[in-house]
């Protein structure tokens, strides 16, 4: 208390001088939650003269990356609301600071123990919880009168619901949830007695209990077809809102997405497993306000933090934002006592497992999700799938811990900048040396440049822009590839990254994660795409140039549309069209329920179709232009010479199109080689990353496998070298076909 007054007073004084007194709060709340939060912030600001909180909403998809990137550079938040699971990593990398020195036990006791535990890492407390989130069972009261107490009953209800149809004749799913996401699967995993890490912190993903949980889920989805095989969070929401999902396993945020007018719903505890009597126990995560290690005024920041997690603001968030807050007292409020939903989540908290906050946990998600997909779609048994996940996670862990080795050797601090400085010096020396050796030519060059200086003045802005936007990032990227990134620091490893990639150290050559497999698939991807683009584009151009086609102009416009729509939108739409149960394509082909993502070939095909739809207009436009530049007389001469349509095409059209199509094909190859959006958004690499191309693999190394920025940079550099060689070769060849026309 005394401290607060002291710091508050100082803060007041300093705020006049330093212009401080402002605490920046970042969050990614939407809808009701956001409004409730803003209300509490406004309340804080009116009641405090010396400190003002400013909020910034960052959309969730970019949120975590933004935090990780912004804080070390000093333009991140002072405090931010986030789920707890990154705490370990951020603590290690110095993004967040512990708050032990500020916190009194009275404050700690406001909250449920289980919500504070996840915020402790290596015996230090890093934040104050705002709410907790775990999944529970949502049910549609129209289809489920009483929530099931055990799994047998749940299955019974689900099967019964499946027999019914909605008022407009659509089918109903018994139990819908994101079954192939470990977060939502956790209830089953822990309910069946499984574990993720053992006491030593080693992964034990392939235990018998885990397999039992996965088999159980396979029974629900793969055999009984209670849920669609291909589920996204948006699908869950839209199915529930359309009355097509009897039960849903989802978290408190789901309340904000339910259309309460359409669906009469309730929330209950997840049931017990009939056979063992154990309850399904999902992950519980704390959402907390964390303190940035670079906060300009930690004391002020903490004051804001503590106030926002007070009992009264918590009630606001609970009642208006529908958040299950972490404050015990809030649940005594009469308004809350009679809200069965909030009480349900509070109950579930008793049967929930805190999600680990260690950096090692980050490596578990993707392999486990792959395992779930594989097992549920029947590509592998539960045991096989989990064994593969265990293998992958172990591999990742080993290489991740290698990074820790570097950290412990302590060579890291500031080394990247030092290396950059050295590189610049080296470049300068090289430039000077070149200047000296080629002095005369240099003088000539400079003299000419000076004579043409006004020309250079015109292009100077563009040169500057290209320099800053292309060359500088490029140089930094290449430089990065000689380093290993671990927990915020860069350690020099020389060519190790390149050697690891090219010698396929971590994966055998035929493993889908190896560089060579990715290279192979990228080449196949490029070749098939460009070929189809050319053939389709040219074919359509030949059809359109016929002057007898009256609606020529209309067709041209229609056919350019694929090109005009941003390609990530197209990708998302096509993915929807390929959906196994609801998608238009399966419907037209009569193969409802067939999942395109199950099998490398069909997933590749789906990507191919989407990208061809995107790519042919370019070739068509180029071909049309080139076709129109071929003089009609040549065709007449050929006609008189006796050439039929095919011969005219082969001997006149094709050779004369080459000068135009060749550059187009070369460009098309480069663009397709690096086509990130389509594959990332359509097949998403399914199954198991086997349709990912090189550039996506680089991305995943950077952002999904423990922040291996150096490795990813090395990958990117290799991609660049491949494309550079390709360009040089094609330049040579294209010069040979230049000037077919006079």
């Amino acid at each position, binding site marked *: 208390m005394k401290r607060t007054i002291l710091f508050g007073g100082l803060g007041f004084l300093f705020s006049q001088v330093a212009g401080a007194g402002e605490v920046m709060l970042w969050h990614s709340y939407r809808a009701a939650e956001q409004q409730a939060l803003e209300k509490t912030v406004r309340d804080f600001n009116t009641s405090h003269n010396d400190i003002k909180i400013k909020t910034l909403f960052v959309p969730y998809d970019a949120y975590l990356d933004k935090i990780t990137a912004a804080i070390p550079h000093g333009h991140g938040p002072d405090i931010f609301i986030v789920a707890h699971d990154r705490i370990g990593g951020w603590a290690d990398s110095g993004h967040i600071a512990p708050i032990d020195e500020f916190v009194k036990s009275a404050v700690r006791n406001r909250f449920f123990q289980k919500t504070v535990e996840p915020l402790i890492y290596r015996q230090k407390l890093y934040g104050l919880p705002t709410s907790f989130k775990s999944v529970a069972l949502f049910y549609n009261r129209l289809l489920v009168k009483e929530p099931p107490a055990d799994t047998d009953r749940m299955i019974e209800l689900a099967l019964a619901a499946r027999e019914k149809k909605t008022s407009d004749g659509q089918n109903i799913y018994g139990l819908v949830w994101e079954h192939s996401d470990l977060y939502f699967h956790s209830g089953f995993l822990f309910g069946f007695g499984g574990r993720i890490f053992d006491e030593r912190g080693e992964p034990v993903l392939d235990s018998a209990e885990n397999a039992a949980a996965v088999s159980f889920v396979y029974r629900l989805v793969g055999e009984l077809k209670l849920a669609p095989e291909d589920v996204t969070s948006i699908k869950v929401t839209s199915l529930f809102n359309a009355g097509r999902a009897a039960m849903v396993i989802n978290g408190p945020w789901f309340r904000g997405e339910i259309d309460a007018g359409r669906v009469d719903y309730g929330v209950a505890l997840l049931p017990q497993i009939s056979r063992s009597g154990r309850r399904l126990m999902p992950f519980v995560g704390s959402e907390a306000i964390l303190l940035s290690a670079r906060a300009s005024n930690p004391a002020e920041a903490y004051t804001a933090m503590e106030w926002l997690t007070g009992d009264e603001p918590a009630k606001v968030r609970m009642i208006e934002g529908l958040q299950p807050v972490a404050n015990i007292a809030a649940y005594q409020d009469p308004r809350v006592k009679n809200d069965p939903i909030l009480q349900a989540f509070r109950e579930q908290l008793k049967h929930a497992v805190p999600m680990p906050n260690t950096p090692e946990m980050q490596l578990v998600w993707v392999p486990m999700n792959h395992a779930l997909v594989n097992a549920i779609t029947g590509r592998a048994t539960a045991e096989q799938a989990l064994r593969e996940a265990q293998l992958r996670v172990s591999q990742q862990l080993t290489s991740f811990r290698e990074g820790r080795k570097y950290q412990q050797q302590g060579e890291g601090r500031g080394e990247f900048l030092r290396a950059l400085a050295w590189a610049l010096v080296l470049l300068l020396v090289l430039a000077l040396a070149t200047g000296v050796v080629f002095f005369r030519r240099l003088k000539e060059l400079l003299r000419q440049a000076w004579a043409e200086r006004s020309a250079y003045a015109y292009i100077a802005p563009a040169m500057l822009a290209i320099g800053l936007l292309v060359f500088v990032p490029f140089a930094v990227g290449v430089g990065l590839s000689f380093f290993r990134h671990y927990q915020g620091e860069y350690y020099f490893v020389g060519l190790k990254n390149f050697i690891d990639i090219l010698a396929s150290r971590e994966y055998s050559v035929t493993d889908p994660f190896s560089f060579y497999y990715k290279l192979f698939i990228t080449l196949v991807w490029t070749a098939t795409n460009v070929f189809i683009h050319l053939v389709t584009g040219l074919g359509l151009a030949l059809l359109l140039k016929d002057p007898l086609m009256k609606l020529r102009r209309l067709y041209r416009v229609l056919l350019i549309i694929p090109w005009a729509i941003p390609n990530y939108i197209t990708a998302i739409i096509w993915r929807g069209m390929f959906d196994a149960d609801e998608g238009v394509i399966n419907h037209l082909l009569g193969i409802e329920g067939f999942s395109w993502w199950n099998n490398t070939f069909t997933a590749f095909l789906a990507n191919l179709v989407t990208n061809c739809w995107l790519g042919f207009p370019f070739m068509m436009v180029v071909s049309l232009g080139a076709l129109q530049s071929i003089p009609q*007389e040549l065709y*007449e*001469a050929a006609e*008189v*010479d*006796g050439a*039929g349509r095919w011969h005219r095409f082969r*001997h006149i059209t094709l050779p004369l199109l080459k000068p135009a199509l060749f550059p187009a094909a070369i460009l098309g190859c480069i663009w397709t080689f690096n086509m990130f959006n389509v594959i990332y958004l359509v097949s998403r690499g399914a199954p198991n990353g086997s349709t990912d191309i090189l550039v996506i693999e680089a991305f995943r190394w950077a952002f999904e496998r423990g922040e291996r920025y150096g490795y990813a940079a090395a990958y990117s550099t290799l991609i660049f070298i491949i494309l550079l060689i390709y360009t040089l070769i094609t330049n040579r060849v294209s010069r040979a076909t230049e*000037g077919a026309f*006079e």
Partner: protein
Amino acid sequence: MAEVRLRAVGKSFGKVSVVRDVNLHIADGEFVVLVGPSGCGKTTTLRMIAGLEEVTSGDILIDGRRVNDVHPKDRDIAMVFQSYALYPHMTVRENMAFGLKMRKLPREEIEQRVEEAARILDLAALLERKPRELSGGQRQRVAMGRAIVRQPKVFLFDEPLSNLDAKLRVQMRAEIARLHQRLSATIIYVTHDQVEAMTLADRIVVMEAGQVQQVGRPLEVFEHPANRFVAGFIGSPSMNFLPCLLEQGKVRGDGFVLELCSEHKEKLANHSGRVFLGLRPNHIELKASAPGIEAQAEVSEPMGTETYVHLRVGEQLVTVRADSPLVVKAGEKFWLQPDMTRAHLFDAESGKALL
């Protein structure tokens, strides 16, 4: 080699009629030139013969066979285009061989024909070059070579010399004439240049506004034009036309009266009315003093071998050919004495020749 017959051939694009009622008979081995100003329908007629345009009405027969619906490649014709239409990505040899390859001739025969044509046209040294490495004249010869190797029944030339410079044109004209002699081929040739027509043709077909104005041997057409248009088109510089009134064997013009020669008087004994008097520049003598038609000189064109003087007679401009070296001052007065035995008379309304 074969004869070509056009019977009442017409061509329309929708409502617009560009060729009307063309009747022609081209004998085997004959060199016929279709000549006329731009837009007269000569190229369209040629293209109809080639099969590159559909015939709207009438029949075209090649060697007695009606070919209206026959594809160009089956008509056994070869065409030389105005802009040569050489295949830019093929060598000269390949260009010439292309048509034969399409007809699946055996390789030795193709080579033999190409070599032969190259020899005739002096292209032997250029066989491996691409069109862009050739001059205009060389390209034209390649285009001709491409036609020759086909050994067709009929050669069609579409203004082949229009893209060449004046000197080259003269050279190539001679080449084409030589070619005709050598191959004894039936040639149908289109041009807007009446000099080419006069020098190359066995017979000329003068066309205007889609219709045939006159068909005949060059000299015949020159000396006995069927109507005013032909008279004005053939011959360079063109014939002078003076509007007159014809009565009783005399023509009365703007400021002059001329007596017809006795032969003409007889023919036109009962004629009277408005006419055009046609006199070629070389059928008028320039005299320094009367008698004659008074005229004032405006411009003179010394050509070296002769001088063309443009004089004003009343409202008209008259061109007269005089022997060099005549020095003429603007405004100088002269008296013109036309040779009335060489006079032409055209009905003022219909344009038809009265003599």
